[in-house]
């Protein structure tokens, strides 16, 4: 009876795990039970591989749950389940094989499988192959992106394995490209790598350059005597030319190949430490305000054996002469670095070409901004000969009009369409008022016009500050103007700049149309050339001047909306452009719209060009540009396109 009972217990003990162990996943997990529970980064890889390569449909699920720390072991029988929290201190468990809930268990009866972060990273790597073959294309893309962001040698094999089965053409291209890049970086066979390097020749992608550049990184190294033949050396460094003597010597000192040179600073410290009764090394302390005296004192100390002998600069030279210094590639294979360098040089040439193109586009967009800012000025200054220092404030007024319209009309597209004519109307009115009240009294006193309009400028600027405050106001562009037109990784231009370019072109056309094709333009040109003759032909010069000034101001207002879209709207917005606008008009030539266009192009491309030569310093760029303009004026005092004949004035 008792034996029977024992046998029954034994049977139960045997049967109960067996009955639950019916699934292949559980069997697999139980086989690796010890390793899973006490996992370590060093020993876990075979287990992960066993699960991943088991071919079981649940393998991915197991790895995911494992990585997410959601696998629980039932203390009673040691079986593994994945669980979710059902109640406080209780978990609902699911069987891996059937995905059926097993029941809810209090936490006391369970034990959480806790893989450490190293193990979880390994699981993550292993999971990649599942993601790369996932039926969901978005997940496959996400997996590729994560590999791209964080490439590792282990990912190469699963990536390659997944290429064959890829059905989506786009993703296939992505995978092949990523494979090439990973091959360049991680493959063990130099031939394969060189082939892959040749494959990316001429590719402008940032990722390609980011892959190739590390191959060519070097370490500074040195050797006694001649250059070692066996190593992959990039270049020799000549002491004094490619490397300073001090830096070279410091390397030797750091490697314990040479004694430390006693610097002036050390001499001072040593002397200070050995002062005895106001004397050190046979000299009075007060006399040691000279390096020669200090050296003498130090040598005296050294002669008496108190301090180590001094190593002078001369000895340093001799030591350095017996060493060669060179840059050593981190990559040992010479063929690989050669191929990488050649490919990279080819890419750099193309990148340079494209950068020039990009710079050209930048310059063009800057030129169109300057043109927009200056076109109104070209009318008032060029056509009428009136200096309007408040021109910048008209630009600012236009930008604030855009801002106010945007506060009233929330839809950005509609508000922009409303703001452009509104800005024109507001600044046209302001311009006409200014012409009537101030400028018309000063037509023959240009310097005083300059000062009076400047007075208006400071008043208007301060009024804007009082109304809108000193902080920048946003003028938000509509959604369809966000983003940029990207040609490749090097060349891109934002839509807003394209829009400004188009706007500048539109204004050029409008201006030409008004001046050449309308009655008003004809009258303006007549008044500009000879006001008396014009008025005797029945033209009212007062009216024409007023309208011309209004037109110039109105265009400045519209330019203000455009400028406000990409710059912050502040009360100083206009003042930032006024000097450049004047320069544009002066360089281009007064009284001619083509001159303004040329001037804007010149100044825009010049500024971008100087910025490109010295990219870290835009202040210097502006300085040099202004100096260039001052010198330019020497040779063409009347601008690129100078007026000839009577209209020139003198």
């Amino acid at each position, binding site marked *: 009876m008792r034996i029977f009972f024992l046998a029954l217990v034994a049977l139960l003990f045997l049967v109960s795990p067996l009955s639950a162990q019916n699934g292949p996943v559980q069997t697999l997990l139980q086989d690796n039970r010890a390793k899973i529970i006490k996992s370590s980064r060093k020993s876990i890889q075979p287990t992960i591989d066993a699960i991943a390569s088991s071919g079981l449909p649940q393998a991915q699920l197991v790895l995911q749950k494992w990585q997410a720390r959601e696998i629980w072991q039932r203390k009673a029988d040691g079986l593994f389940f994945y669980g979710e929290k059902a109640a406080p201190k209780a978990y609902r468990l699911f069987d891996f094989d059937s995905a059926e809930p097993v029941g809810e268990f209090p936490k006391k009866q369970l034990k959480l499988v806790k893989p450490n972060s190293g193990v979880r990273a390994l699981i993550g790597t292993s999971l990649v192959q599942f993601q790369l073959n996932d039926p969901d294309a978005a997940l496959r893309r996400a997996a590729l992106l994560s590999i791209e962001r964080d490439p590792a040698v282990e990912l190469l094999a699963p990536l390659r394995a997944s290429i064959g089965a890829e059905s989506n053409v786009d993703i296939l291209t992505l995978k092949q490209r990523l494979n090439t890049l990973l091959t360049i970086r991680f493959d063990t066979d130099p031939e394969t790598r060189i082939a892959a390097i040749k494959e990316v020749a001429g590719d402008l992608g940032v990722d390609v350059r980011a892959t190739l550049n590390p191959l060519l990184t070097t370490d500074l190294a040195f050797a006694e005597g001649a250059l070692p033949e066996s190593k992959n050396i990039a270049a020799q460094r000549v002491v004094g030319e490619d490397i300073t003597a001090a830096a070279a010597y410091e390397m030797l000192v750091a490697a314990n190949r040479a004694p430390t040179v006693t610097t002036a600073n050390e001499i001072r410290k040593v*002397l200070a430490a050995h002062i005895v009764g106001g004397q050190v090394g046979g000299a009075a302390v007060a006399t040691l305000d000279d390096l020669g005296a200090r050296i003498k004192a130090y040598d005296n100390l050294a002669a008496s054996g108190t301090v180590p002998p001094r190593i002078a600069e001369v000895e340093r030279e001799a030591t350095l002469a017996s060493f060669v210094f060179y840059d050593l590639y981190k990559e040992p294979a010479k063929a690989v670095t050669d191929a990488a360098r050649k490919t990279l040089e080819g890419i750099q040439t193309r990148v340079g070409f494209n950068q020039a193109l990009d710079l050209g586009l930048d310059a063009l967009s800057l030129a169109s901004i300057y043109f927009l800012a200056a076109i109104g000025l070209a009318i008032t200054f060029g056509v009428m000969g009136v200096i309007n220092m408040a021109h910048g404030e008209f630009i600012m007024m236009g930008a604030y009009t855009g801002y106010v319209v945007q506060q009233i009309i929330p839809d950005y597209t509609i508000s922009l369409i409303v703001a452009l004519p509104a800005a024109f109307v507001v600044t046209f009115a302001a311009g006409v008022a200014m012409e009537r009240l101030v400028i018309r009294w000063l037509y023959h006193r240009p310097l005083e016009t300059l000062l009076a309009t400047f007075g208006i400028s*400071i008043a208007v600027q301060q009024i804007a500050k009082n109304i809108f405050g000193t902080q920048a106001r946003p003028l938000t562009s509509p959604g369809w103007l966000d983003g940029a037109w990207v040609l490749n990784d090097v060349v891109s231009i934002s839509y807003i700049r394209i829009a400004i370019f188009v706007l500048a072109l539109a204004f050029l056309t409008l201006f030409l149309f008004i001046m050449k094709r309308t009655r008003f333009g004809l009258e303006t040109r007549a008044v500009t050339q000879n006001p008396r003759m014009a008025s005797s032909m029945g033209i009212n010069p007062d009216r024409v001047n007023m309208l011309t000034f209004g037109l110039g101001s109105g265009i400045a207002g519209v330019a203000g909306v455009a400028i406000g879209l990409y710059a912050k709207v502040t009360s100083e917005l206009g003042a930032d452009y006024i000097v450049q606008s004047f320069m544009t008009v002066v360089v281009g030539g007064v009284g001619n719209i083509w001159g303004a266009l040329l001037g804007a192009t010149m100044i825009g491309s010049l500024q971008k060009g100087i910025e490109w030569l010295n990219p870290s310093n835009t202040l210097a760029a502006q300085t040099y540009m202004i100096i260039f303009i001052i010198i330019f004026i020497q040779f063409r005092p009347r601008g690129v396109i100078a007026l000839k004949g009577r209209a020139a004035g003198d």
Partner: protein
Amino acid sequence: MPRSFIFRNPSILVFIGCLAVFTVVVTVLSEGFGIGFLSTSFIKTLGKTLALCLVAISMDLVWGYCGILSLGHFAFFGLGGYMIGMWLMYERTRDIVVTSMASAEIPPTQQEVKDAIGNQIFGVVGSSDFPAIWTLAGSLPAQLALVVLVPGLLALVFGWLAFRSRVTGVYLSILTQAMTLALSLYLFQNDSGLRGNNGLSGLQNLPGANNVPQAIISVWFLWGSALALGLGYVLFTWVVSGKFGSVIRGIRDDEARVRFLGYPVEAYKLFIFVLSAVVAGIAGALYYPQAGIINPAEMAPIASIYLAVWVAIGGRGRFYGAVIGAAFVSLVSTWFTSGQVPSIHLGFYTVDWVDWWQVVLGLSFVLVTLYAPRGIGGLFDLISGRIAPNRHGADLGPGAGSLQEKEAIE
């Protein structure tokens, strides 16, 4: 026998007299030498105002007498300030460094002192080496010479380039404005060698006068500024009187006619431009030790335009007008922007003068240009009864007898 120079220019006596009385009164009321009625900071404000008057008369020389509207005179003013500031900062830092190094066990070498000064001065821009332009910073006579030479040389080069290509009128104004903008942008860089936008600071401390309180130093500078202003006034009055002055005024009124009469117009203009730049540099060298700090923002184009505003409001073409304009507008500006002027309550809106002063200044400037081209100084004409004959038409230049509008356009 020609009448004496002073007799022909009675304004000199009046001006020097007023300046002397002003200086004596301020000294008596000062904290350092007198009854302490005026605070040291106000003495400094008055001293700075005198320096500004000096730059205003130099502006009046080029604009009011020679017709060159320079919108870049504060570039010269600032350069003068920088040159004296370099010496002040170097010597003061040297004092500090030597004092702190005196406690070291071993006396410092020359090189160590220099390195420590460099570290102190340029640490703020992430450097410790002296740029080449600081080579002479340790010598007061050299830096004083540079106060005159640097602005003079800049004016000479710029003026020669501009005048020989016959850039005149508004073009010249815009070019001078571009010049001061370029200079201030250049100095804003950290590697310009003059501490970038930090500028030079601590200039109010005179090296070697550590025991002298600021109350006394401020009066010293007031005397220096008054002396310089008086000398400048006499010098300029002498320059514009006589034959030379007639040519200068002729250039202002009609440059082409003077040229056709055989005068080398460019040389005259260049001389006047350089002279006024040198005086502006001296004015800057007197101003910034009283202000205590100089940075590139001081040379922004707006500062030079304000200078033109002062001269215009005071009345150009007469030096006392420039002095009155500079003193009046800068003192009133200080008063209004200091927040001491009571606000005006309109019920629906409170006019706070700190915010609205600029508007008043700008608009009054427009009104002066339109209706009172002679400025405040024109009031003296009313007193002295010297009212110009009515020549039918607004005058183009500010001085009596200048070309009239009707005559000019014919």
